[in-house]
């Protein structure tokens, strides 16, 4: 074999330049189509992810309705809202069911229902009357107590999105009388959800009576995803009356409450200006029911 024969053989299969260019054009078009299809598919995936994320965020932070309240209550106490205290309104629903309190910008902290975790809903309280709320809480594993509480000084930081509040404050319970649900022993520690220290205003925080006597719904530990122990949704007791505060998000629809008239100052948790009858805002009043009446409601729940 000589070089000419080799070169002749090597050149025996030259493709047509036009055929190559045509094939190249086809492949480039197919590539663009695949790219467009992939982009379209990616866009669809992104849209779906955004929609699912928005729904999930709404479910975790959204305002509970009476229906969702009942449903979550029946299922236990695992659901925790993600709303931050600053996003929430406050108030005690008065006897006619209307929310008597205007939202307090950037200041409201509520103790939540067992079903919704220690914090209330974003923007407004769930319109669930007291008796129904207690019944739902008990079904969810909560206890209803009358006790004397004292802050221990311990606190824990929480993630509002997972634990329901930015902070929790430890309280030792004594002289406990369990009205409903699993018995709570004297000496137990429970946690009050609230705003981070220094950020809460007085009236929108949990309020404590001078002697520490309180009525409370004690939610199981799981409500905060085990961040801390059982949590309290409390109402102080002053002179034989249970004082329903804005932070409790209580709904006294159908009852005959009285506006808090006592001069006894109530101390916010963790700190803040004392609240009494004279200092309570006109539209965010504190309402009272006799403890005996409340106990009857609890018994019937």
């Amino acid at each position, binding site marked *: *074999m*000589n*070089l000419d024969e*080799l070169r002749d053989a*090597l050149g025996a299969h030259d*493709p*047509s330049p036009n055929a*190559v260019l045509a094939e190249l054009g086809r492949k480039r078009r197919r590539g663009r189509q695949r790219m467009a299809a992939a982009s379209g598919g990616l866009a669809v995936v992104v849209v779906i992810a955004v929609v699912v994320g928005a729904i999930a965020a709404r479910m975790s932070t959204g305002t509970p309705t009476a229906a969702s309240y009942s449903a979550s209550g029946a299922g236990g106490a695992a659901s925790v809202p993600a709303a931050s205290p600053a996003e929430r309104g406050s108030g005690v629903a008065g006897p006619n069911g209307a929310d008597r309190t205007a939202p307090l910008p950037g200041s409201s902290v509520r103790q939540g229902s067992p079903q919704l975790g220690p914090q209330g809903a974003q923007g407004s309280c769930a319109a669930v009357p007291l008796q129904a709320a207690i019944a739902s809480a008990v079904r969810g594993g909560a206890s209803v107590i009358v006790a004397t509480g004292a802050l221990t000084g311990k606190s824990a930081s929480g993630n509002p999105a997972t634990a329901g509040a930015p902070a929790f404050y430890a309280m030792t319970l004594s002289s406990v009388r369990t009205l409903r649900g699993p018995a709570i022993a004297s000496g137990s520690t429970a946690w009050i959800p609230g705003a981070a220290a220094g950020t809460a205003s007085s009236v929108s925080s949990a309020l404590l009576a001078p002697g520490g006597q309180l009525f409370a719904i004690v939610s199981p530990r799981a409500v905060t995803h085990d961040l801390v122990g059982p949590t309290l949704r409390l109402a102080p007791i002053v002179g034989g009356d249970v004082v329903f505060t804005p932070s409790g998000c209580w709904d006294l629809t159908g009852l005959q409450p009285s506006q808090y008239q006592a001069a006894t100052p109530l101390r916010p948790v963790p700190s803040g200006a004392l609240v009494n009858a004279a200092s309570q805002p006109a539209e965010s009043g504190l309402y009272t029911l006799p403890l005996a009446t409340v106990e009857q409601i609890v018994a019937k729940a």
Partner: protein
Amino acid sequence: VGFRGLGKEGAVTFDEFVRAEMGMLTRFAGALAGDRYLAEDMLSDALLKVARRWRRISAMDDPAAYVRRVVVTTYLDDRRKAQRRRTAPSADVALLDRPVADPADAVVERAEVIRLLAVLPPQQKAAVVLRYLLDEPDERIAGALGCSTGTVRSHLSRARATLRLVADGEGVSA
């Protein structure tokens, strides 16, 4: 021979490059593939890769050399895939030494050369094409194949043995 001349003319567009080099590209691809249709497919694949990276390739010192390497790489990849899909050709060198049925018949002679080329391993065939079709030196062949010049010389030596060619200076004789 071909593939040269653009050098640092990075301003040329992909289409201009293809127009200028298409003749040599088709010749090169045809020699490598040994089949015009396979060559069309392989060369279009290679040019597709080049087109996607043309901005960077056009800024190179020798874009033609890079394109040549892309063609060789595409050819070697295709051969690897083909070997997985098809029955491998015989590697029995003794088969290549069988006497040609009718040496006087030029057509048969050419067919025999083509047959011998077809049984060359891909790396050896690429080296043969670059050397004897494009007159490339060892260094540039090594660049295209991604190997050393020693390996290039080894490829060429083995290919010549298979093709029953004897190097004679720059030329080759039977």
